[in-house]
């Protein structure tokens, strides 16, 4: 059975936020919900300072803390390693949002517009709201699921496809021949916060 993961090459990432916008557009996420985020960091003092962007998303952990703390069992793990939320079981207690070491879970009480209040929703926003309420729901916990619907059509996750620097690679961690396994082995891929014991499946390649 495949075990899906992702590799993000920090040398290639230059912080353009295309992955953030691509994810937003593909999944119709409302304001404040960022399944794919880019954090900025800086090291050193001018003239010897370096800047780095860090794209973060749900790490689809092997031992997810969010699944452990969920009281209803709404958060579950599929056979191919993706952690999903069953919106009919979720009660919106937001414990998973406190427990995720990576801050990857989001919940909105209602679908707000990106534009100032008082304006009617545009047709595109109406479509997005419908998709959001059908697939994700308001008042419940939501998270990245490595674009299950796109993968069912044979496409890659949105963030992987739109990245202009080709910094993101999606693949099967269990397959030793896949590009992602090769990159992790040869370029010393590391994960975020390995000490919390969640065994994340998103690997990063060092920037230098």
């Amino acid at each position: 059975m495949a075990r899906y993961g992702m590799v993000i090459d920090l040398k290639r990432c230059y912080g353009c936020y295309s992955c953030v916008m691509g994810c937003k557009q593909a999944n119709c996420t409302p304001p404040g919900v960022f399944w794919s985020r880019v954090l900025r960091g800086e090291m050193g003092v001018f003239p010897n300072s370096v800047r780095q962007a860090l794209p973060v998303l749900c790490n689809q952990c092997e031992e997810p803390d969010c699944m452990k703390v969920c009281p209803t069992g709404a958060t579950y793990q599929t056979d191919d390693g993706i952690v999903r939320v069953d919106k009919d079981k979720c009660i919106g207690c937001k414990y998973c949002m406190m427990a995720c070491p990576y801050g990857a879970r989001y919940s909105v009480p209602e679908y707000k517009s990106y534009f100032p209040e008082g304006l009617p929703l545009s047709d595109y926003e109406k479509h997005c709201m419908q998709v959001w309420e059908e697939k994700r729901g308001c008042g419940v916990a939501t998270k990245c699921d490595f674009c299950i619907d796109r993968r069912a059509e044979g496409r890659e996750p949105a963030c992987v496809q739109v990245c202009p620097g080709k910094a993101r690679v999606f693949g099967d961690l269990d397959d030793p021949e896949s590009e992602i396994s090769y990159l992790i082995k040869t370029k010393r891929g590391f994960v975020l916060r390995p000490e919390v014991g969640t065994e994340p499946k998103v690997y990063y390649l060092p920037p230098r």
Partner: protein
Amino acid sequence: MGSEKLEGQVQVEWRWLIAAYLFLAGVGGGAFLTGVIADLRGGADWALVSKIGVFLGVPCVLIGTLFLLADLGRPFNAWRVWMKPGTSWIARGTIIIVLFMIFAAIQTAFWIWPFPGSIGNAHGAIAILGAIFGFLTVIYTGLLLGYSQPIALWRTALLPVLFFVSAVSTGIMAIVLIGQNQGVGEGKLALLAHIDALILVFEMFVLIMFLYNAYRTLESRFSAKRILTGAVAPAFWLGVVACGLLVPFFLELLGSGALAEGLAAVLGLFGGLCLRYSILAGGTLDPVTAAGFEFARVDRTKEPMPAMGKVPPS
């Protein structure tokens, strides 16, 4: 590791509604424990105090649970909350507070049971069971918050201790407040007030240790600063330190009479609520580090999209 120059990301989800539940569960559990101790050790002389304490158990926790339901995103699904006691502290907690309410309700019923002779040993057994689950009700939330991996402020063994001490203190204050109206003797009220003053000293000690530990731990230093000098400071210094600890302490130690005890109780209860709020509002997720860099998280206390201006009237 965390960094002093980087701000953490404040958690915005659990605030006053959850603080209200934590406070009420503490008062209910603490009052019940005090009532049971008064019953088992004080005998018939302390019967009224014990009755008040036991009677407070169920209503406080029940109203607190309503606050919990109000915070849920999907409250009508709340019956599902039992499903995973194996790993989830919310599921375990629900079982604990329901068992507490059952035992407390039975204990309450014993006080108004019209056939006093038939209870016998069951009275003591139910009291002990109720006390155990009352104790668990008060501390399990400290363990629940401590399970949160990224929020270092809560991830300490001192939190259940702090919740327990505060619960006993606010429980005694609630008994004193109601006891004044119900005709409990002056001597007993004064004794309760003095015991509470001692407990407040211990609570001050635990709170100082809690904040000291939070400051010394690098990941939670931003949380500690946020509570002591940041956005939560007014609620902390006015609500927790002044109203919740210092003023009641001096009133209970040096003052005497109904007014001093009543005022101390009211301020102390308000302080207990502010304590829970300060701990929740101070919770911040620690910064992310990778490849030698430290990355600041997004500040979610601010609106994600600043207002672009109001729509002009047409």
